[in-house]
């Protein structure tokens, strides 16, 4: 989850109140920025959740906490000036990166620290909402040297050149993708394009090559007073939401927002959405005994504005991109009420407990097996063909196989419990013998069910030691027979990984339940086991059905 670094002095200044470190540590998490950790004298690391991109700047946090800590309430009103700058969106870019949102923020006082905060906000928005710039990318420009109106268009790689940030020389768009650090990092986004997006002013100066890099010419510096913001991307709503988060953060710093005419529409749109909220619904879902006034109060402290009536009319601030449903408002009511103030209550629900029959049956068998002196293991469900086929020499199965495993070690779902238990024996070679292990668990193989694979419960038992053999496992099988009250038959049957003539299938009536036998010396060698190993594996589901 995204982390940001803030300076607590800036937070206090923006909140117009000094909040103690203890209060931040103990209470701040209850608003939904997950953790606050002090890193230096004034430096704090704040972990946020992806649903609140408006928390990715100290300005956004201060705005929310001003309300949460009770310094201010209601919606912050942003009143943008009418557009002076125009941006036209030209045809070629519409197939490449179709959407752009722009705004101007004037009369802003910047410092190195504030610029770093802005860059952090920009980068974090790129990572989260922007899905690493694919979905959206942000450009911030010093407006002073530029000549509006601007054009958002797409050009062939060799047609346009400029000097990008962090570079000494002028390059064309193709060179930037090939040689500039940012170009190499993000060139995948434009991989299939013939033309690349650019924003150009009326003197043909390039502002930006989204989503890659800006022109050095427009770099925002401490002297910058007027900032031009562009947000480009693939989805119109996301582009506009992001623009709102950016401009309102800058406005929190005292900047004056000015709209930009983008193809005839003035952006940003900072008017709130209005939602109606039924107070009974709030009470029912939250379980809180809370009046309409109190609900309104809670919402106001979460920076909504509320008009009371039969239904509450709630104005949702333009930067709250996460609010989609009444439920989201109810959540904010409860957050403002504080989760810690919610009293736990157990409802009376009369229902008889029920364990799935096979689960209960498995537990019974675990008791029986532990009673025979064997140790229960806990092994991985994910495994690999090396362990299953080569080492354990299991017969071919239609395996459940991952498309994208990070390691070959965990690349299939186990079709049998045996490899896991043999691995456990192999890991215990330095311990005393004899060793008896068992586990009951699920395996999965492909079949013709709806998902294409089904889980089956299996019981696996292994015994290893100089004196261990078929008879030892047969004895355990008989203990199961005795204690479960079932009759099982063993008949001789060859199996690739078991010793000839010491291998059998286990049946119950006409149902095949599993196999039993002594492990073939080759499989033993594969697991570097020196003593004989005897094994059995039973199908728990079939056995349960047979009872």
């Amino acid at each position, binding site marked *: 989850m995204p982390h940001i670094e803030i300076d607590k002095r800036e937070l206090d200044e923006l909140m117009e109140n000094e909040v103690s470190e203890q209060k931040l540590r103990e209470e701040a*998490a*209850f*608003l939904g920025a*997950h953790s606050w950790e002090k890193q230096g004298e004034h430096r704090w690391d704040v972990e946020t*959740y992806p649903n*609140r991109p408006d928390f990715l700047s100290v300005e956004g946090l201060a705005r929310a906490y001003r309300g949460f800590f009770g310094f201010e309430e209601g919606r912050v009103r942003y009143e943008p000036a009418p557009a002076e700058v125009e941006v036209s969106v030209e045809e070629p870019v519409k197939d490449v990166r179709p959407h752009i949102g722009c705004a101007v923020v004037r009369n802003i006082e910047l410092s190195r620290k504030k610029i770093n905060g802005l860059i952090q906000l920009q980068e974090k928005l790129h990572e989260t909402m922007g*899905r690493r710039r694919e979905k959206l990318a942000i450009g911030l420009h010093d407006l002073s040297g530029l000549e509006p109106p601007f054009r958002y268009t797409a050009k062939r790689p060799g047609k346009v050149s400029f000097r990008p940030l962090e570079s000494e020389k002028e390059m064309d768009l193709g060179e930037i993708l090939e040689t500039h650090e940012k170009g190499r990092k993000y060139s995948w986004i434009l991989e299939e394009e013939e033309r690349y997006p650019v924003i150009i002013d009326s003197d043909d100066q390039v502002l930006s090559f989204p989503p890659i890099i800006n022109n050095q010419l427009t770099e925002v510096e401490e002297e910058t007073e007027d900032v031009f913001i562009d947000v480009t991307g693939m*989805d119109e*709503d996301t582009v506009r939401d992001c623009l709102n988060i950016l401009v309102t953060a800058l406005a929190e710093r005292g900047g004056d927002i000015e709209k930009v005419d983008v193809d005839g529409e003035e952006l940003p749109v900072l008017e709130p959405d209005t939602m*109606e909220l039924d107070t009974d619904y709030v009470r*029912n879902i*939250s379980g809180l005994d809370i009046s309409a006034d109190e609900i309104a109060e809670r919402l106001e402290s979460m920076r909504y504005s509320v008009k009371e009536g039969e239904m509450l009319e709630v104005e949702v601030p333009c930067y709250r991109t996460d609010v*989609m*449903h*009444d*439920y989201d408002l*109810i959540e904010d009511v*409860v*957050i403002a009420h504080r*989760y*810690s103030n*919610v009293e*736990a209550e*157990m*409802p009376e*629900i009369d*229902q008889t*407990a*029920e*364990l*799935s029959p096979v689960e209960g049956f498995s537990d019974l068998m675990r008791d029986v097996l*532990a009673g025979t*002196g*064997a*140790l*229960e*293991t*806990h*092994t991985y*469900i994910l495994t690999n063909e090396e362990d299953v086929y080569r080492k354990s020499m299991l017969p071919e199965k*239609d395996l*459940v*196989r*991952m498309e*994208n495993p*990070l*390691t070959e070690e965990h690349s299939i*779902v186990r079709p049998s419990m045996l490899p896991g238990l043999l691995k456990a024996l192999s890991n*215990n070679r330095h*311990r005393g013998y004899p*060793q008896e292990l068992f586990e009951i668990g*699920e395996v*999965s193989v*492909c079949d013709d069910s*709806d*998902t*294409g*694979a*089904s*889980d089956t419960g299996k019981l696996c038992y292994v015994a290893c030691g100089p004196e261990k053999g078929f008879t030892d496992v047969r004895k355990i099988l008989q203990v199961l027979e005795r204690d479960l009250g079932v009759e099982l038959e063993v008949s001789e049957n060859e199996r690739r990984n078991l010793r000839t003539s010491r291998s059998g299938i286990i049946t119950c009536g006409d149902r095949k339940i599993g196999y039993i036998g002594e492990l073939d010396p080759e499989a033993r060698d594969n697991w570097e086991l020196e003593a004989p190993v005897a094994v059995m594996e039973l199908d728990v589901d079939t056995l349960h059905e047979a009872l």
Partner: protein
Amino acid sequence: MRLTKQAENLLSVLKQESEVTVSELEDDGMDQSMINRAALELEEKDLCTIESSEVEKGYTLTSEGREILERGVSPEKELVEEAGDQPVSTSDDIWHKPVALGQARERGWIDLKEGDVFLTEEGANLEEDPVFQGLKRLKDGGEPEDPETLIERGLVEKEVATEKVLEATEKAEELDLDSIEERFNVESRADTPRTGKKHFYKNVIDEAKGIWLEMGFQEMQGEFVVPSLLNFDALFTPQDHPARELQDTFFLEKPARSSLEEFGEKVEKIGKVHEDGGTPNGRGGGMAGAGGRGPGNVLRTHTTAVSAETLHRIDIEDEELPKKYFKIARNFRNETVDATHLPEFIQTEGIVVGEDLNFRNLKGYISKFFERMGYDEFRLIPSYYPYTEMSVEVQVKHDGEWVGLGGAGMFRPEVVKPLLGREVPVLAWGLGFGRIAFLQMGLDDIRDLYRNDIENLEKTPVWRPER
């Protein structure tokens, strides 16, 4: 008279032999600490005396002695041999010069005149090397002729050991062994036998299972392989949510796709919810519908997929609400293995479905569960999951720190309505289990839960909650 079996045995030996040492008894196969305990018991009852005495145990060679033995000649003899062949001066390089000169002179083998060495007659006729011979005899297990000289020369040391000598007292001599009653030592420890045993991690799981059953929950059914529809789409997880990206989710090469036939119209409804929220008061996540990945299979990344399937299976027309369900099962994340990350992990999942349920009830169930699992301090803080609202992180106090053990919340109407058929409050949680076991068993490597070291399995106590 009452004696332990061991003391009685010792006494019967002492009555036969007038005097015996501990090491002699050890040589007879008795355990040293057992002899000492039995002797003390007898001494206490005035049946034997224990005396320490020094016993000579023969001689050992010093390093100088060993050097002579290895070289096969003593320095004084070597000096005599060299002086016999050619003139030797005291300024020459002589092996162990001061010793060689001193000893040879003392034995009357040489004379010194103005720094030159002259053999005496005795020296000139010398054949034996008494020092070497003495050492050699000693090494071969014999007794040297003149041990004192060798000791003075620092070539040999006398070995002395302290021995405990046990002797029966008069009282013991008179005591009739048949009159002794056996005293049993209840204090001494026996060997702990090897037994069968359930796995310590499964103890934790069994305990949790018991708690849900006590609360009347029914177990849910679900499998490892699920369509993205259940794992993501039905849970209102946006198409481009980071969790879907390759590094977190195991997508399947085989079986690659599910048939969604049994979900019928729900597939479309789930897709629509992503576009417009699907409810009069809602707006969608602005995301593409479920049409794309819906049937694509994954290994479930959370047991919430099982909850989604359970909601789908409830026949809302026929079955009566409320209902409560649980599941404790394995989930899979495509992660690199290290001390704190594994590609599989166990969660305990729960849902409660009913018209009158609310957030306070959610807190009720979760606090009950954690209380029963042995945590007296826990808290809920706001969190985020695409499918819940309120979204909650459950934290417990462990060693003074708040530690997150999982998520909880109320399923969003966008989740419930398409799956169940109408909007009903659903309380839901998915609590990480490995973390609970990890913290409570004091492990520092999560892989230890899967290591199956026999010694560790045997010695780990059966887990029970601290309550």
